[in-house]
């Protein structure tokens, strides 16, 4: 059963991983600890390390049990936990164009009824928000952004919509997402972007890094269609 937990906390995962927890509630402070730790571990040369996976409150460090063991990995990780924080995480800022036109935003009307705000207000709020990439999950290139303004936060819909196209801008609760693949989703579709967070032809196809900041810039339908045609 649950007990009070001190953080940071290291939990072994069978013979292949260590889950490093920085808290049990997602907030900016905890996420910053996640980012700093993730960045420090990746820059260090940890023997037998396979990968680091950051989320809102923790980092999974996975290792090869044939090359190292849990105690050795934990010992090395402890150094990064106890060390004074000096590392600065390299992050990038992105201005992402969004077309909020009716034809691109099938859920804007319903959301407007639900929130008691005009579609215009929702767009204003959404594009005024400052977002941060918290983590990836669900599908390749699905980067979850935190920072949806309070005024337009809404729980996801009860029934998912099938085959939502790539580059749809959606919100649910405090999070915002740009789809990369046709997928079912219960999030609110409020626009489309010309920006592709997953670029399959690139060597590193994942454009966002966890920790990057994002702002959304409204784009009119004519420009959107013109740019879409060019691509």
């Amino acid at each position, binding site marked *: 059963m649950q007990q009070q937990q001190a953080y940071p906390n290291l939990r072994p995962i069978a*013979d*292949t991983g260590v889950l490093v927890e920085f808290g049990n509630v997602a907030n900016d402070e905890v996420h910053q600890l996640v980012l700093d730790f993730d960045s420090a571990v990746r820059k260090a040369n940890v023997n037998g390390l*396979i990968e680091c996976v950051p989320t809102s409150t923790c980092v999974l460090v996975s290792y090869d049990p044939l090359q190292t063991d849990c105690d050795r990995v934990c010992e090395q990780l402890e150094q990064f936990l106890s060390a004074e924080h000096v590392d600065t995480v390299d992050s990038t800022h992105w201005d992402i164009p969004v077309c909020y036109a009716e034809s691109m935003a099938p859920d804007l009307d319903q959301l407007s009824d639900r929130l008691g705000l005009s579609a215009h207000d929702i767009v204003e709020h959404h594009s005024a928000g400052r977002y941060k990439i918290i983590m990836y999950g*669900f599908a390749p290139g699905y980067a979850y952004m935190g920072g949806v303004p309070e005024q337009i936060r809404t729980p996801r819909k009860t029934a998912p919509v099938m085959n939502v196209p790539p580059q749809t801008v959606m919100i649910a609760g405090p999070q915002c997402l740009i789809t990369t693949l046709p997928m079912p989703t219960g999030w609110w579709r409020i626009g489309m972007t010309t920006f592709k967070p997953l670029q399959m032809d690139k060597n590193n196809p994942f454009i966002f890094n966890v920790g990057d900041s994002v702002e959304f810039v409204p784009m009119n339908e004519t420009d959107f269609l013109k740019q879409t045609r060019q691509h």
Partner: protein
Amino acid sequence: MLAKLNIKQAGPSVSVQDAGRPGHLRYGVTRSGAMDRAAFTIANAALNNPTSNPAIEISLGGITLECTEGSVSLAIVGGSFTSQLNEKTLPIWSAFTIHTGDTLKIKPGVWGSWCYLAVAGLIESPSWLDSYSVHLNSGLCGRPILQHDVISIQNATTNTNELISLGEPGPWPVQNEIRVVVGPQERYFEVVTLENFFNHEYSVSAEYDRMGMRLSGCTLPIAAALDMPSEPISRGSLQVPGHGDPICLMADHHTAGGYPKIATVISADQDTLAQHRTGDSIRFASVSTAQAIRIARDRAVQLERALERMELCKVSVTQRLWSNNLISGATRGEE
């Protein structure tokens, strides 16, 4: 040389797999790769292929193919599947060469969910992030193999001209006991639930695919409020959603999720678990992390030895029939 294999029939989830694409979980990309990694490794070793050479992963749906051009050596390793080359039954694990006009039929046998058809050459298939593993859910790297597909094999060689038996299917027959390390979210369950988890038998439900395996048996109620944020997922995690049935996350698992994981199947037993079929029963046994690491290392040594033994026993079946005066090599491995 080029060889072509025309797919006459293929069951669902038959796909090209290799050792997968590690290192991209942080971008939402699961590792994928062979469900039974040891069998995949042995199949490639049988043909002296590079360790991660892409092979065809065959599900319980089986496959029938005809060689329509060239010749190429093949190896079949995995669960106990029955294979026929032009009506002739092959040993359970075998290497042989297929020539233009030959038909190969692979069907599930007495146990096992997956087997690997390794090829002496390179299967023409899309690659992404240094891996040929098809990711069935996203469709980002290829798609399952379907009837009427023609699989081209580049640089096809024929390094085994006689039928070779690779020995018994093992040392990994399906065992009933699956070892786990408790956690990382056992705190969401009552002590009695953890006891039930270890003291009851579970059976593999029909919900089993490359993403995960749902088990049924004693349900595992979540005792605490489900307040955990979405966390990274590891292969082998036994996640318990609201219905209380544990789901073991397999090769194509999601990269993050918000359900508690009661335990994690140790890496050494993940292949074994994957070879279980719907209806098969299992029991979980608890080991420590240190034990799990020792078991993983022992298993790596065992696999090394198995490969050496296989090298020694690459005796052609015709030779063996001569020396042992066996009537048929076809029953080997099912004894």
